[in-house]
C-alpha cells in the first residue's frame, strides 16, 4: 500500500524498526533522566505530607502554591537543572535522529545484504558518513530558526506598540494574532527544509550545502502542499498529548488509588509514543519522497528520455536545475512505477552515493 510505503518506511526493515524503537526509548530514558532533579526535589519536599505529593494535584492549588512559596528556591534550582539537562539531551539526541533518518534511506530499506552483521555494518557506515553534514545542517537550521524567532519577537513587539489603540480592542487582537502567525511561517518552512535536507543527505550521501539547496528547491516548488502536510502531521501529533491531558485530568491523581497514577502514566507514555511515531512518519515521508524522485530519475535515464518536471497545480514551479553529481552512483534496482510525488524535481537529483 502506498501510504504504508510512504509513511512507514521505519517499519519496512528490522533495522529501521529497531532504530525507531531505540529512538523512542532513548527519549523516554532521557526524559526520565532530565526529570530527576525536579522529581527528586518534589518527592523530597512532599515526603512528610499526609498524602505525599498527591496534595500538590488538589483542585485550587493550595499546596502547590504553598510549596512554591516556602521551597521556591530549592525547586528553582531543581527546575533549572532539569531544564539544562533537557536542553543538553535535546541536542544530544541529534546522532540518534541521524541514525533514524539513515535507517529510512533507500539503500538501507531496499537493500538487505546478508548476513545481518553486514547489514549493521552498512547502516553504521552510512550513519558515520552522514553525521557530520547532518550536524552542520541541523546547527545551521537551528541558528536560522533562532534568528527568525528573534525577528518574530521584534516585529510583533514593534507592531504591538505601533498599533496599540489604533484599532478597536478586538481588531487589535486579531491583527496581532495574524501577524504572529505570519511570522511563524519561517519557522515552519525552516523545519521543513531541515527535515527534507537531512533526508536528502541520508538518501544520497551528499554534503550540507547540496542537500540544503535540494530541499530548498523542492520547497520552492511546492511550498503550500509541503507546509500543509507538515502542519497536518504536527496537529495530528499534538492530538496525543491533548487526549492524554484530558485522561490525566479525569484520572485525578490527587484522589486515592494507585490505578489513577498508572492510568495517567500509560496515557502520557502512549501520547509520547504517538508523538514520536508521527514524527517518524513525517521523516519517512521525506525519505520516500527522495527515493521516489531518485527512481524516477533512473527510469528516465534508462529510457533515455530526459523527462521535464511536470507541473502540478499552483505549486508547480520553475524549470529544473541541472543534475548535481556528488558521488558515484551505485547500481540499484529500478522501480517500475514512479509515484506521483516522484515527479517533483527528478532531474535535479544528485547521483546516489555509494553504499
Amino acid at each position, binding site marked *: 500500500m502506498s501510504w504504508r510505503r510512504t509513511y512507514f518506511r521505519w517499519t519496512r526493515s528490522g533495522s529501521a524498526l529497531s532504530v525507531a524503537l531505540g529512538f523512542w526509548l532513548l527519549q523516554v530514558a532521557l526524559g526520565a533522566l532530565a526529570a530527576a532533579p525536579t522529581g527528586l526535589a518534589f518527592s523530597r519536599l512532599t515526603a512528610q505530607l499526609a498524602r505525599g*505529593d498527591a496534595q500538590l494535584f488538589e483542585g485550587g492549588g493550595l499546596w502547590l502554591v504553598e510549596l512554591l512559596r516556602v521551597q521556591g528556591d530549592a525547586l528553582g534550582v531543581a527546575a533549572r537543572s532539569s531544564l539544562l539537562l533537557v536542553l543538553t539531551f535535546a*541536542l544530544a539526541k541529534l546522532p540518534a535522529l541521524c541514525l533514524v533518518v539513515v535507517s529510512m534511506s533507500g539503500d538501507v530499506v531496499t537493500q538487505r545484504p546478508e548476513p545481518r552483521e553486514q547489514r549493521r555494518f552498512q547502516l553504521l557506515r552510512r550513519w558515520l558518513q552522514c553525521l557530520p553534514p547532518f550536524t552542520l545542517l*541541523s546547527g545551521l537550521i537551528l541558528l536560522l530558526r533562532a534568528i527568525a524567532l528573534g525577528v518574530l519577537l521584534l516585529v510583533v513587539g514593534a507592531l504591538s506598540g505601533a498599533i496599540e489603540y489604533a484599532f478597536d480592542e478586538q481588531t487589535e487582537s486579531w491583527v496581532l494574532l495574524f501577524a504572529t502567525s505570519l511570522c511563524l511561517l519561517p519557522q515552519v518552512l525552516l523545519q521543513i527544509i531541515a527535515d527534507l535536507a537531512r533526508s536528502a543527505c541520508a538518501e544520497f550521501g551528499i554534503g550540507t550545502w547540496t542537500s540544503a539547496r535540494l530541499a530548498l528547491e523542492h520547497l520552492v516548488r511546492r511550498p503550500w502542499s509541503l507546509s500543509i502536510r507538515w502542519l497536518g502531521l504536527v496537529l495530528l501529533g499534538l492530538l496525543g498529548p491533548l487526549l492524554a491531558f484530558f485522561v490525566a485530568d479525569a484520572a485525578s491523581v490527587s484522589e486515592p488509588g494507585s490505578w489513577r*497514577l498508572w492510568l495517567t502514566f500509560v496515557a502520557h507514555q502512549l501520547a509520547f509514543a504517538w*508523538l514520536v511515531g508521527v514524527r517518524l512518519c513525517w521523516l519517512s515521508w521525506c525519505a520516500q519522497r527522495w527515493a521516489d524522485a531518485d527512481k524516477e530519475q533512473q527510469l528516465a535515464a534508462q529510457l533515455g528520455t530526459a523527462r521535464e518536471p511536470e507541473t502540478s497545480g499552483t505549486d508547480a514551479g520553475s524549470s529544473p536545475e541541472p543534475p548535481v553529481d556528488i558521488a558515484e552512483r551505485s547500481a540499484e534496482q529500478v522501480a517500475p512505477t514512479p509515484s506521483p510525488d516522484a515527479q517533483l524535481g527528478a532531474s535535479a537529483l544528485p547521483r546516489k552515493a555509494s553504499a
Partner: protein
Amino acid sequence: MSRSRLQRASLELALGASLLVAALVLLSAFKTNSFGRAGDDSGSQPAPSHALAVPPDPAAPAEPANALPTSAPVSYQLNARLDADEQTVFGDGRIVFTNVGAKPLRELWFHLYLNAFKNSETLFARSPFSSGRGGGKPDVWGYLEVTQLSDTRTGEDLWAGRDLHSPGDPQDETDIRVPLNQVLSPGETIGLDVQFTSKLPAIVERTGFSRDYYFVAQWFPKLAKFDPEQSRFKHFAFHPQAEFYADFADYDVHLDVPSESVVGSTGQVVSRNEVPPNADQEPPLGNAARKRLHVQARRVHDFAWTAWPGFVEHTDSIGDTQIRVLYPPGHERNLQRTLFTLRFALPHFEQHYGAYPYPNLTLVHPPHHARNSGGMEYPTLITTGGNWHTSLYTRSVELVTIHELAHQWFYGLLASNEPRWPFLDEGFASFAEAKAVRELFGTSSAGKALGLELSAESYRRSSAAQYAHDVPVAQPAADFPSFAHLGSLVYNRTATLLETLENVHGEQFEQLMRAYTQRYRFAHPDPEDFMALAKQHLGNDAAADIRRALFERGWVDFAIGSVQSAERPTRAGMFGSGNELEQVVDASEHDALPRQLGRVLLLRRGNLTFPVDVDLYDDQGNVFRKHWDGSEEFTFIDYEGEHPLAGAVIDPDVKITLDQDLLNNSSFLERRAGWRSWERSSYISQLLIHLLGP
C-alpha cells in the same frame, strides 16, 4: 572514508555543534527579552482565600431598614461642564457645611486631590520610584484650580486667604486650609459658593481622560472629613499609597457633556435633556449639541462620573436594585460574567452585611485604552476591567466585580478612614470577596481552563505570609515601605486573619460581622470599634489575638515537632518487696492493653493562639482526631493503639489559614514517595526534549 573526507567531516561536525550552541544561546536571549517586556501588565487583583462557609441564619435579627440617615452634615450643589477639547471640567456651585462639633470652627480644610497630578514635585508624583495603585506619573498633567470660594454669610471670598500648600509640604497642593473670616459656631451652617476648573490628567490613579473617554473622580474641592468629637477636620495630603476619606453628604449635580456621550455616575439621574447646537453659545461649550443631566445622590461620601460615546449600555435589576452596566463594544461576554457575578454577590453581601440602601448601582467597564481607570470603588458606582477575551480563561472580571461591589459596604457604608486605616476597607472587602467567590466558584475561584483549577485563596494565603514579619497590618497607608507590603498585608493578611477567625469561631464570628456592619452603617468606624465588638462576641483572648495580629505583626506557625512510635514495654521483672516480692513473667495483663504507643510533639510558634485539631495516623491508614487548645507553645499528644503510629497532621482541615507555613503541619515516620510529581516531570521533560530538539 578518506583522510580528507574525515577532516572535512570533523570540521563539519564541530561547526554544526558550534552553530547548535549559538542557536540555543540566541534563542535564550530572545526569550529573556520577551519575558522582560511582558512584565508590566500584571494588573494584580486582590484575591481571596479559604474558609468554612457560614450558612444564612434564618433566626438572625432582621436586616436594618433599607433607609438612609435623615441628615448629612455636608451637601454639594455642583454644576459641571465638560470641555472635551481641553479635557477640562468647568465647575461651580455651593457647598453647605454644618458644624456638628461642640466647638466653634475658625478654619475649613479642603482636599484638592487632582493637584496630586499637577507637576512632578507633588507628594504623589515626586518619588522617582513606582508606587501606589495607578503607577507612575500622568502623561498629561492635571490640576484643580479654585477661583472662588465665598462665604454666603458675609459674601467674602475666603479663597484668597487660604494656605498655598499642604501643611509642611511647599510642593503639594492637595490639602488646603481655608481660614474663616467669621467663626462657625456649633450647630451653625455655612454656605460656600465655589467656582473651579478641573484640568483632567491622562488617566492616572483611576482618574482622567483617554482619548474621548473621561473618568472624572476627585474633581471638585472636597471638604475634609469633619470629626465632631474632636471638632476638627481629618485632613491629609494625597499620598500615592493612600485613598480617600470624607463625610456622608448629599450631592445635587448638573452635568453638561457633549451630546454623544454616554454618562454614568454616582447617584440617580433625575432628569436629562438634549441641548441643540447653539451658535451663540460662548466657549468653552462652543456651538455643539450638548447633553445635560441632573443627578442626585444622597448620603454618599464621594461623587464620580464618566462619559464616553463608545459605551454600550445594559440595564437590569437585582431585587429592588436597578443595575446599569456601561461597557465597550465587544465585551458582551464580560457583561454576562459581570451580571452573573452580581446576581450572586449582591444578595450574598446583603445577607451577610446588611441591605444595599441605594436604589441603583452603576458598573463601568472602561475601554481597553483607559484600562487604568478600572478596578475602583465609588458610592453606587464601581469600575471593573479586563480585556475582551479575559473571561475566556480567568475569573478576573468576576473577582474585580465582587471586590469592588464589596466596597459598597466596606468603604461605602462603613466609611472608614482609608488613608489612616486602609485595612478596614481593603482588608474587609477582600475578606468579603474571598468568602463570596469561594461560595460561588469553589476551588476554581481564580480560574479554570483545560482542566486546571486555581483558587484565589491559594494566592491570597501565600501573599498574606510574605511580609508578615516586616510591618504591622494596622497602620497608615503612607507608612508601608512599599505598595507590595500594603497589598500583601492590608488586602491579603487582613482577609486571611478574618477567614481564620471565621473558621475557628464560626457563628460567633458571623454575628460579630453582622454587628459591626449594622452598628457602623453610615458611620466612620475605626479599628477600636471593631476590637470592642470582637471582645464582646469572641471573648478577651480572641480580641487580644486580633490586636496582636493587626498591630503587632502577630503570627502563628503550627508544626509537628516529632513523631515517635514504640511497642508497649512488657511488664516483667521483680515487683514489690519483702514477702510481697513477686516476679512477673506473665504478660496476660499487659496483653489486654493496646500494644502500640506513640507520642507526637506539637509546636505553636509565634504569638497568636488558636485551637486546632490534630489527626494521628496509624500504619493501617486509620485516623484518630484529637484536639489541642493551642494555648501553650508546645504540647505532647499520646497515642495508644493496636497498630504503630505512622504520623500526625496538625490542623488537617487548614482552618488556620494564617499559619505561616503549612508544609510543616505534618510529619510521618516513613517518607511518602513522590511518584506523581516524578511521572509528571518525566512526561514534561520528554515532551520538551522532543520539541526542542533540532
